[in-house]
C-alpha cells in the first residue's frame, strides 16, 4: 500500500517548498558522480571514527553503521518556533505530571488519568513516592519524537523521557556534513547545534544537589562498552569533559556516591545515567544487577546526588500514559496542547479493542512498554497471516497494546542511485531542563530507507539525516 504523503521538499501540488530553495539551487549545480563519491566519503568517516551501534540478535554484525543520507532535512525558522512552543509546553507538563504522581497525585484524584494505569505500571516506582529530586526536575533530557502530516500538522509520536539516545548522531551528522560540503554552510545560514554538550553540562550543573560545594563533579554512567549506545555515552562524556563511569567504578562512601580514581575515591554530585531504572541499585531494584551502584537510592533520597533523568520518569513516557497526554498538558498548564497527539486506541478499553480488531489491517499496533520498533505491527504492510497472529496476541493481553492510525508521515528525499527519491521521516529534537528549558535548534531526523516503509528505527533498517533549522 502506498500512502499519499506530504513531501517536505517537493509537495506535488505546490512545487518546491521555500525552506529548500537555496539547497535545491546548490544541488542542481552538483555533478551526480561527485555526490555519490561524497556519500561513500561519509560512510568512511563514520566507520573510521567508530560511530557504530550494536544490533540485537545479529551475531556477526555486532557493530554496524547507521546509514547516513547526505540530503539534509530542512526546517524554516518559523516552523521551528512553533514546534519549540509546543515542545516546551509538553516538557513542562511532563515534569509537573511526574512531581504530582510521586506526591499528591491530584491528577488521579481528579479522575483525569485512571489510577490503576499508574499504580499497576512497571515504570512507576513506589520508591520515588515523596522524593523530590534536586531543583525539582525529574526529566532533564528529553527526546520528543515528532511526525508531520501536512504543511501545518505536526504530532507527537512519543515522549522519550527516560534516556533518549541519538543526540551524538545529531552532532556527528552535522560535523560530517560540514566536512563534506563546507560551501553549503557558507551559502545557507543554518543554526548551529554543536554547543549541545556545553548546554548539557551547564544544565546538569544547574540541577546539582543543594549541598554541593564549589563546581559539581559530573559523570556519565554507562552499562559498558558492549552496550548498543556506548559510542554515544563515550562521546558525550568526552565532549562535556566529564568522566565516563561504570557501576564497577562507583560505590557509596560516607553518604555520597564516589568513583574509584588512581588517587582513591572521589565524590560525584551529578550522575547522567544511561542505565535503566531497574539496574540502578541492586539493593532497591534488581538484586542481580552489576551495572548499578549498591545504595545509590539511599544517597539519592538523602538529596546528596542528582540522577538524570530521575528514577521513575518512565511512567511519563509509557505508551499507555501517552494517550492521556492532551489531558495531562491541559491539567498542568491550563491550556490546550499546542502539539497534538496521534489519535490512540487503548486496547484495554473494550470498545477500542473491538474497533482495533476490526480494523487491524489499517492500524499500527504497539506494545505499551516496547521501544525501538520491536514487537509492533504495521497493519497495512503486514500479511493476512501476520495480522491474524497478532490479533491473537492482542486478545490474550489487550492492556499490553495501543493502536494508532497508519499516518502518511511526511517524506523527505534521499539520494539514491537513481537520483532523489522520497522516504518517510520523523524528527527527534532534544530538550534540556534545568532552571529553564532549552531546545537545540535541530535534532535527529530518522528516515525509513526502504521505499514506502514507515519504520524509521535504526534497529529496523532506518537511517539518519542532518537536520537544519534555518536562521531566517
Amino acid at each position: 500500500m502506498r500512502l499519499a504523503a506530504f513531501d517536505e521538499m517537493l509537495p506535488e501540488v505546490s512545487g518546491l517548498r521555500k525552506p529548500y530553495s537555496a539547497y535545491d539551487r546548490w544541488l542542481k549545480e552538483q555533478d551526480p558522480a561527485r555526490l555519490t563519491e561524497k556519500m561513500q566519503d561519509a560512510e568512511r568517516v563514520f566507520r573510521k571514527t567508530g560511530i557504530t551501534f550494536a544490533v540485537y540478535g545479529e551475531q556477526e554484525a555486532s557493530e554496524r553503521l547507521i546509514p547516513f543520507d547526505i540530503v539534509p532535512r530542512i526546517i524554516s525558522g518559523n516552523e521551528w518556533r512553533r514546534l519549540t512552543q509546543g515542545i516546551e509546553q509538553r516538557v513542562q507538563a511532563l515534569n509537573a505530571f511526574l512531581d504530582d504522581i510521586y506526591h499528591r497525585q491530584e491528577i488521579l484524584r481528579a479522575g483525569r488519568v485512571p489510577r490503576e494505569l499508574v499504580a499497576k505500571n512497571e515504570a512507576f516506582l513506589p520508591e520515588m513516592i515523596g522524593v523530590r529530586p534536586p531543583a525539582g526536575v525529574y526529566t532533564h533530557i528529553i527526546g520528543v519524537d515528532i511526525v508531520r502530516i501536512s504543511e501545518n500538522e505536526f504530532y507527537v509520536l512519543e515522549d522519550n523521557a527516560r534516556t533518549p539516545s541519538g543526540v551524538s548522531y545529531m552532532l556527528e551528522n552535522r560535523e560530517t556534513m560540514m566536512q563534506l560540503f563546507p560551501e553549503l554552510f557558507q551559502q545557507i545560514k543554518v543554526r548551529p547545534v554543536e554547543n549541545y554538550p556545553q548546554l548539557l553540562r551547564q544544565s546538569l550543573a544547574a540541577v546539582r544537589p543543594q549541598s554541593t560545594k564549589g563546581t559539581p563533579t559530573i559523570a556519565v554512567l554507562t552499562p559498558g562498552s558492549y552496550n548498543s549506545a556506548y559510542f554515544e555515552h563515550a562521546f558525550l562524556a568526552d565532549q562535556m569533559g566529564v568522566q565516563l563511569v561504570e557501576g564497577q567504578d562507583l560505590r557509596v562512601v560516607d553518604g555520597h556516591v564516589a568513583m574509584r580514581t588512581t588517587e582513591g575515591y572521589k565524590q560525584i554530585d551529578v550522575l547522567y545515567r544511561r542505565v535503566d531504572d531497574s539496574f540502578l541499585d541492586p539493593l532497591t531494584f534488581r538484586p542481580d544487577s552489576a551495572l548499578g551502584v549498591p545504595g545509590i537510592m539511599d544517597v539519592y533520597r538523602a538529596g546528596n546526588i542528582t540522577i538524570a533523568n530521575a528514577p521513575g520518569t518512565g511512567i511519563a513516557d509509557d505508551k499507555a500514559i501517552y494517550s492521556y497526554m492532551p489531558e495531562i498538558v491541559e491539567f498542568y498548564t491550563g491550556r490546550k496542547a499546542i502539539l497534538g497527539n496521534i489519535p490512540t486506541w487503548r486496547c484495554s478499553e473494550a470498545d477500542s479493542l473491538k474497533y482495533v480488531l476490526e480494523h487491524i489491517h489499517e492500524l499500527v499496533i504497539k506494545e505499551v512498554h516496547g521501544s525501538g520498533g520491536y514487537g509492533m505491527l504495521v497493519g497495512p504492510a503486514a500479511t493476512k497471516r501476520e495480522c491474524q497472529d497478532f490479533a491473537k496476541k492482542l486478545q490474550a493481553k489487550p492492556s499490553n497494546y495501543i493502536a494508532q492510525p497508519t499516518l502518511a508521515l511526511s517524506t523527505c528525499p534521499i539520494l539514491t542511485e537513481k537520483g532523489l527519491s522520497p522516504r518517510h521521516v520523523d524528527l527527534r529534537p532534544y530538550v534540556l531542563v534545568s532552571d529553564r528549558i532549552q531546545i537545540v535548534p535541530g535534532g535527529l531526523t530518522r528516515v525509513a530507507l526502504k521505499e514506502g516503509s514507515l519504520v524509521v528505527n535504526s534497529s529496523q533498517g532506518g537511517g539518519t539525516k542532518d537536520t537544519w533549522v534555518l536562521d531566517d
Partner: protein
Amino acid sequence: MLLGRTANGLYWMNRYIERAENMARLVDAGLRMALTRTQNASEEWNSVLLSAGADVAFTQKYQDYTAANVADFLLRDTSNPSSTMSAIETARNNARMVRTALTRETWESINEAWMSLKRMLARPIDERDLPSVLDAIKRETALIRGSFYGTMLRNEIFDFSQLGTYVERADNTARILDVKYYVLLPSISWVGSTLDNYQWESILRSVSAHRSYRWVYEADYKPTNIADYLILNVRMPRSLTFCYRFLAEHLKFLGDDYGERHACHATADKTQAMLRAGSIKDIFDAGLHEFLANFIRDNTRLGDEIAQDYKFY
C-alpha cells in the same frame, strides 16, 4: 583525575599494542633463521614460541614446528590470547573502554589498525605473503605509536600508557634473551662459529637491532656486546635499562603529581639502580640465566604493584 579502571585500560591497551608488534618481530626473526638455516628450523621455531610464551599452547594444537603453523598460531589464531590478532583486538577493546582519554587521532589509528589487520588476517597467510603481512603489522603499530606520541598530552594518561608499553617491552626483551641465553655464554664458544653468528643475529633481529648494533659496537657479533646492548645500553630503545629509565621516570611523574609514592616506585627504582650499577661482566659472573629469571619476576611484580597502587581494580 583519572578513573582506576581507565588507568587499567590504558596500561593494557599499550601492553597489547606492544605485544601485537613483538609477535610479528619474533616471527620475522624465526622466518629469517628458517630461510638461512634449513636443518634446524624446527628448533628455531620452538625457541620463537618459547620467547612468545606460547610453546605449551602451541603443542596442544600442533605437532610440527613449521613456519606455517607457528606464523598462524602467533599471528592470527584467536584461541591464542597473545597472537597479533588477539592482541590488537584486546588493545582495541581497551581503547574503546578508555576512549574518552584518547585523542581522536590515537583512537582512529587503533581502530583502523584493528580493521585492517582483521581483514588481512581473516584467512590463513600464504607463505609468499608472510613478509608483507609482517611489514603491515609493524606499520600499523608504528602508526598507532606515531599518532599517540604526536597528539597525546603528557599527563597521567600518558604516564599509565607508557608504563604498559615498557613493562611489556622489558618482559619481551628479557624473555628473548633468556630463551637463547646459552648461546651467549662465553664458555661454550668464545670464538663464534657460523652457527653462533646466526643465533646472535637472530636475537638482535627479534628486537630489530641487527643494524643499529653495528653503529654502536664493532661489526662482528660478540655475545658480551649483544648482552650488553640488550640489557645495559641506555640508548637502545628495547634494552632493559632503557625500559626502566622510562618506567622510573613515568612513575616519578605520577608520584610528584599525586604527591604520594607507593611500593611500585621502590621496585622500579631498585631495578633501575641495579641496571645502572651493573656491568655485563658482573652479570655473566653471577649467571645470565639467573639474572634474567630474577628480572622477569621483578618486572611482573612491578606490574602487579602498579595495578594495586593505582587502584586498577
